[in-house]
């Protein structure tokens, strides 16, 4: 990778340069910005505003088909959507904040603050995602002596040994120069502290775990490391390992993040080409459904929730040189880590914090969007919430303790990138306000939004349409519209408590490990659903009050009907929330992924069967075949040539089930490595 690869390409300049002189470009930018600001502040009659808004939304609808692949049109689209939204918030601030009684005023300000946050995040998001950068990384040189040495670190706390074995084996199977990389299991569940726990049962369990994992590592060729005390959670675990290793690069893999064989081949070349590169981050690609997808039965029908971050936002951040370390599936330069004393652990999101430290020292990062690991999402709502509360708390800690806006060494756009990444996690405040505020008017009669139906149609509806269309343009391929609202509502109640904890004492939160690989064998209602019953009931009560208010107070019907529409929207989302909290049983422990490889099923009796793999998991596979063929019997094995190995392999299997044209097989290997 040459220096020019890291130099952010100015796509707009590239497009305009042939026709416009370079010195003219800043002037044009300033002129466009001036006109935009003028239009934002331009006072017009309500009817004119209505036509302006309708025209803008119509243009947005027209442009959305063409703007995605065209940078200039994309910029124009976002500028127009931003104009509609900016005019809305100016109108809200200048005309609708009317002080009445104290309770109404307080509720009005609470709502306005939530709206300010939402509009701020919209503008930050639009800026960050203005020019997503999709890179092609340089390949490794042919001369393997130039390849840097690599240490692969797999930190673990309480994960199942079988899960760890899969990850370690895959890490050992990565294609790289012989003797140039080592794999380490960093066991925080078998520390001296845990093995000498005053509770004899816990101490015995820790010693047993340590013995089991040491034997596992010795058997498969990985290195086992542990430490004296469980200090500073994951960051402490990684730093303790750094004292024992000396590779030039460090790969961090979560316990459930199984790397593909080409992980190092595709990422390490960038470090040879760019000496100031500290990070190549790759996506966290999940092969199982998160609890929302699983419980709503939508897994595979729409992009997973994290796809928005790894499939859009990280590309946007990369353009602004602010893509950051996400804790796993990444390669880091050891020299850079040493410069900041290893992985920094002041916050519970040590990954983003380390990246912030290194960015502010001039080190560079790269985001490479090809999925090179497959991982597991938390399977239950409680596990999901544990993970999200940690992220929310950690990123807010970053905002409060590391102050990206004031931090020396960062470029202005990097500051905005980190501000966006951390301030986003304040969404539980806004989401909770948006959920509860309709009741303030419908039930309690508090005047929180001073507008009539015409103003609502001229300002609010176009604003809502503009942000929805802009969201669809920026993230439509990776996140369906309104899915964000659903996920945010699901997290809002529990994350809000976590946020207040950080605001009270930024150093208070402690790292909590996300539970992975949980299996439940029956359907059940999550015990965390209780607060949402209250919200649900309140929504119905509010709608009931709305009907009463419609008849009892004819003069305020405008406000009532608007607020009832809003409450109805909340109610529809709450259905999804409650549905997601009905935990459906899981039929299989190992996630199943689609496949296409041709395979031969060979038995000790009968002729071999030519088939095709339909899907596969760590424990078995489903085959499709011509129903006219007969299935062999006796001792069975499959013959297949995995693309990853490039040579044929045989694997003993047993028949699990059979239907016309399809059959299920269980692997019967002697060990997991086979």
């Amino acid at each position, binding site marked *: 990778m040459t220096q020019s690869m890291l130099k952010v390409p100015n796509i707009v300049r590239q497009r305009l340069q042939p026709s416009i002189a370079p010195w003219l470009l800043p002037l044009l930018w300033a002129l466009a910005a001036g006109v935009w600001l003028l239009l934002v502040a331009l006072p017009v009659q309500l009817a004119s505003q209505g036509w302006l808004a309708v025209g803008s939304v119509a243009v947005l609808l027209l442009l959305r088909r063409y703007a995605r692949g065209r940078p200039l049109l994309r910029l124009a689209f976002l500028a127009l959507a931003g104009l509609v939204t900016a005019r809305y918030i100016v109108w809200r601030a200048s005309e609708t904040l009317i002080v009445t009684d104290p309770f109404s005023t307080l509720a009005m300000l609470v709502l306005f603050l939530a709206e300010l946050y939402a509009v701020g995040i919209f503008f930050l998001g639009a800026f960050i995602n203005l020019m997503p950068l999709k890179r092609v990384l340089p390949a490794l040189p042919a001369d393997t002596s130039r390849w840097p040495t690599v240490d692969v670190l797999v930190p673990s706390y309480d994960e199942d040994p079988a899960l760890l074995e899969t990850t370690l084996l895959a890490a050992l199977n990565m294609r790289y120069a012989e003797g140039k990389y080592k794999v380490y299991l960093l066991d925080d569940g078998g520390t001296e502290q845990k093995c000498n726990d005053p509770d004899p049962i816990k101490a015995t369990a820790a010693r047993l775990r340590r013995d089991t994992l040491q034997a596992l590592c010795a058997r498969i060729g990985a290195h086992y490391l542990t430490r004296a005390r469980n200090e500073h959670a994951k960051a402490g675990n990684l730093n303790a390992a750094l004292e024992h290793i000396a590779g030039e690069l460090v790969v961090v893999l979560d316990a459930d993040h199984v790397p*593909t064989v080409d992980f190092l081949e*595709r990422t390490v070349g960038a470090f040879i080409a760019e000496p100031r590169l500290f990070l190549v981050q790759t996506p966290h690609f999940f092969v199982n459904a998160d609890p929302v997808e699983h419980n709503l039965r939508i897994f595979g029908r729409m992009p997973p929730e994290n796809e928005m971050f790894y499939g859009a936002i990280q590309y946007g951040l990369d353009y602004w040189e602010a893509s950051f370390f996400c804790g796993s599936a990444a390669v880091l330069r050891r020299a850079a880590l040493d410069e900041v004393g290893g992985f920094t652990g002041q916050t519970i999101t040590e990954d983003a914090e380390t990246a912030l430290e290194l960015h502010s020292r001039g080190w560079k990062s790269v985001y490479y969007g090809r999925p090179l690991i497959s991982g597991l999402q938390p399977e239950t709502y409680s596990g999901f919430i544990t993970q999200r509360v940690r992220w929310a708390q950690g990123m807010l800690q970053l905002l409060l303790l590391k102050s990206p806006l004031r931090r020396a060494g960062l470029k202005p756009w990097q500051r905005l990138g980190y501000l966006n990444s951390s301030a986003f996690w304040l969404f539980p405040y806004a989401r909770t306000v948006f959920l509860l505020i309709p009741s303030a008017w419908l039930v309690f009669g508090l005047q929180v939004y001073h507008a009539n139906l015409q103003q609502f149609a001229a300002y609010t509806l176009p604003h809502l349409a503009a942000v929805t*269309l802009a969201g*669809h343009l920026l993230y439509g391929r990776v996140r*369906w519209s309104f899915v964000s609202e659903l996920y945010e509502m699901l997290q809002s109640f529990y994350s809000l408590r976590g946020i207040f904890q950080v605001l009270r004492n930024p150093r208070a939160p402690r790292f909590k490990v996300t539970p992975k690989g949980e299996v439940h064998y029956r359907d*059940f*209602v999550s015990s965390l659903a209780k607060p949402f019953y209250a919200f649900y009931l309140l929504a119905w009560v509010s709608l009931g009050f709305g009907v009463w208010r419609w008849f009892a107070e004819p003069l305020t019907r405008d406000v009532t009907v608007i607020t009832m529409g809003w409450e109805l929207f909340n109610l529809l989302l709450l259905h999804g929330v409650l549905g997601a909290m009905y935990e459906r049983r899981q039929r299989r422990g190992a996630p199943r992924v689609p496949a296409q490889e041709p395979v031969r099923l060979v038995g000790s009796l009968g002729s071999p069967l030519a088939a095709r793999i339909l899907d596969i998991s760590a424990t078995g596979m489903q085959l499709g075949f011509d129903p006219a063929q007969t299935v062999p019997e006796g001792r069975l094995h499959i013959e297949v040539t995995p693309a990853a190995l490039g040579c044929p392999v045989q694997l003993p299997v047993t028949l699990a089930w059979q239907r016309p044209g399809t059959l299920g097989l269980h692997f019967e290997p002697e060990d997991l490595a086979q």
Partner: protein
Amino acid sequence: MALAYGDSQRWLEMQQSRQAAEVGVLRAFGLLVAVGARAAGAHFAALILDLPARLRRRKRVRRTRAAQGGAAIAGLAQVWPSARLEDGVTSRSAATANAPGVNEQVLELTT
């Protein structure tokens, strides 16, 4: 291992197929509303169908707690003969005071 997790091409194709399932704003809203209503229906159905069983479980738990409370009180009465119990029953014989397992039982109950 190589079959299930081998090459990144499979994940790339899977990612691309997920992204290809893009739908418009209104369709996304309609689908979410339908899916949410169905799942919420299942949630409430489970709550209602499970209600008699939950009530039975609650009653059983209450009974068990009451029984455990009685056992605890009985245990306390065995260990501390001077303890005055609510129903007026006190003490135990000197023989049971040193009976094996009594202290362990109380320890278990009190913890």
